[in-house]
């Protein structure tokens, strides 16, 4: 059961929450291994290394091997968490994630940090705008995007305890805390952050959930009651919650720090179409456009992913109701 935080509390960095939880797990379980490909410093890897120098393997810049070596380590009973930037964890490791990890049924936890526009000043080469789209068709994979530190800690514990391939999308910066630390989440279960009747905003990741909650405030000022949902796991997706909220509010906006092609918006549309409950829907996310260097908040404007853009999309789908 999740418990929502009542007051506004600034969250810690999600990468920090990831690192702390992985160290805590490694203390309990000698089979946990942390693998990196030369960006360990960006996810507090050295803190793990300090405590467990032998179980911290920085392989160098070799993402393909990062994936396959992790698969091999798991095949002899260990539990590898392998991390690199989301852009490399998806595009560069695609076939290895598919064959070495998933097809071979190995027990690998893939962690992609700085997804989408959150890699800001690194520019278009480093913006993972299609990592979910590349991961989502992989059979049996679980894709999670924890939106705050409590969700991140739960995701890491759950991934370690569950056999199979997991992709954890880890935005670097914390926003506001959403969940109490003792919240219990579920795989395939979305969480309602704000109740509402006129429109449902389904969002993923802390950056876009923050934008969605801000949009809900703006909408409230216009007399519109918006429901905001944190999808939490993109695969498996909470089809039941999507259908229920479509029926209750009659209009949907999806909001993602990812291309609008192949990610959350596509996944929600698939559910709605196959459930015969088509309602007006719009997707907010990165349009058909490459990334470029800028601050994340500047990119949010350029890519039309601001609270104002979400508000406009919400008003549009509400107007589209019959």
């Amino acid at each position, binding site marked *: 059961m999740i418990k929502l935080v009542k007051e506004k509390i600034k969250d810690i960095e999600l990468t920090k929450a990831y690192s702390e939880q992985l160290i805590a797990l490694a203390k309990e379980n000698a089979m946990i*291994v942390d693998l990196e490909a030369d960006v360990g410093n960006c996810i507090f890897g050295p803190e793990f290394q300090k405590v467990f120098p*032998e*179980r911290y*393997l920085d*392989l*160098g810049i*070799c993402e*393909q*091997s990062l994936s*396959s*070596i*992790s*698969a*091999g*380590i*798991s*095949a*002899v*009973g*260990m539990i*590898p968490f392998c991390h690199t930037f989301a852009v490399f964890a998806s595009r560069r490791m695609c*076939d*290895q994630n598919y*064959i*070495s990890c998933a*097809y*071979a*049924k190995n027990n690998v936890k893939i962690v992609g940090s700085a997804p989408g526009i959150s890699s800001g000043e690194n520019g278009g080469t480093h913006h993972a705008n299609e990592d979910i789209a590349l991961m989502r068709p992989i059979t049996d994979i679980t894709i999670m995007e924890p939106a705050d530190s409590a969700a991140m800690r739960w995701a890491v514990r759950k991934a370690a305890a569950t056999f199979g391939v997991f992709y954890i999308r880890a935005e670097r910066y914390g926003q506001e805390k959403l969940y109490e630390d003792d919240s219990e989440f579920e795989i395939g279960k979305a969480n309602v952050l704000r109740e509402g009747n006129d429109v449902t905003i389904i969002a993923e990741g802390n950056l876009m959930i923050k934008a969605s909650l801000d949009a809900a405030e703006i909408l409230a000022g216009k007399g519109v009651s918006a429901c905001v949902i944190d999808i939490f796991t993109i695969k498996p997706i909470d089809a039941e919650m999507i259908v229920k909220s479509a029926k209750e509010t009659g209009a949907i906006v999806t909001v993602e720090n990812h291309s609008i092609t192949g990610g959350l918006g596509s996944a929600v549309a698939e559910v709605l179409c196959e459930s015969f409950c088509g309602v007006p829907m719009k997707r907010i996310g990165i349009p058909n456009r490459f990334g470029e260097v800028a601050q994340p908040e500047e990119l949010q404007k350029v890519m039309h992913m601001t609270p104002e853009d979400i508000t406009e999309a919400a008003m549009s789908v509400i107007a589209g109701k019959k």
Partner: protein
Amino acid sequence: MEANTLNELKKFALDIRIETLNMISKHGFGHMGGSLSVADAIAVLYGNQMKYDPQNPKWDGRDYLVLSKGHCGPALYSALAIKGFFPREELLTINKLGTRLPSHVDKNLTPGIDMTAGSLGQGVSCALGMALGLKLQNKPNMVYAIIGDGEAQEGQVWETMLIAPNKGVKNFIVMLDNNKQQLDEFTNHISSLGDVRQKAEDFGWYALTVNGHDPNAIDEAIEKCKAADKPGFINMETVKGKGWQAKECVLNNHALRGPAFAGVDEVIENFRKELAAMQ
């Protein structure tokens, strides 16, 4: 090596070739060339080097083999069947719907297969992961990986070549089935590996070149690698299609289909006679 052991390994390799040609020709499709070139190495591994238990394929004391050139499954399946991991008759199910013996090796289907492979370059990298994982657990098991010379054009192979010595693994031996041919052409006509033994040594490996059809030489090389203070690399000079003379060192001997198997029955029959004469 004692004469008797050598004789047994030669018989084993011959038996692998017989079963390999029999299963793929009866099915009408299969990767012939590389399966025959690697047969002697597999005979040495399963005949004299590796620890394993056919009755308990997941025995945790076993040594591991990753057939990174995963398309040569038929040679390995033959060895596993001969050693009793599953009945020989099952070899004839290769590539049939629902089989436990697919073209490319799959650890979730076949008793005795320790890693899935098929997308070239990945298996050897997985094998390094296994060696690293065993080292972390202070386990003595050896990990062997067999790669092809065509496969060694994959960049991921060279990532493994760089990482393994740097991470200090010693329980790891990579065996290159250097049969000089890949699917399209002769390897040298496409992208030569050059002096691959020297390259491996430069990358930090204990590296040897041997005749890959001499069981005694392969066995000695493995012993030397095991004694070395580094990961071992054995460049096995081999012949693609070894044993089927009409198919040795000719183009289009990678995978055969239908009419390309013409003459195979006679080859198998000759192998059987040769094997009987060795008993």
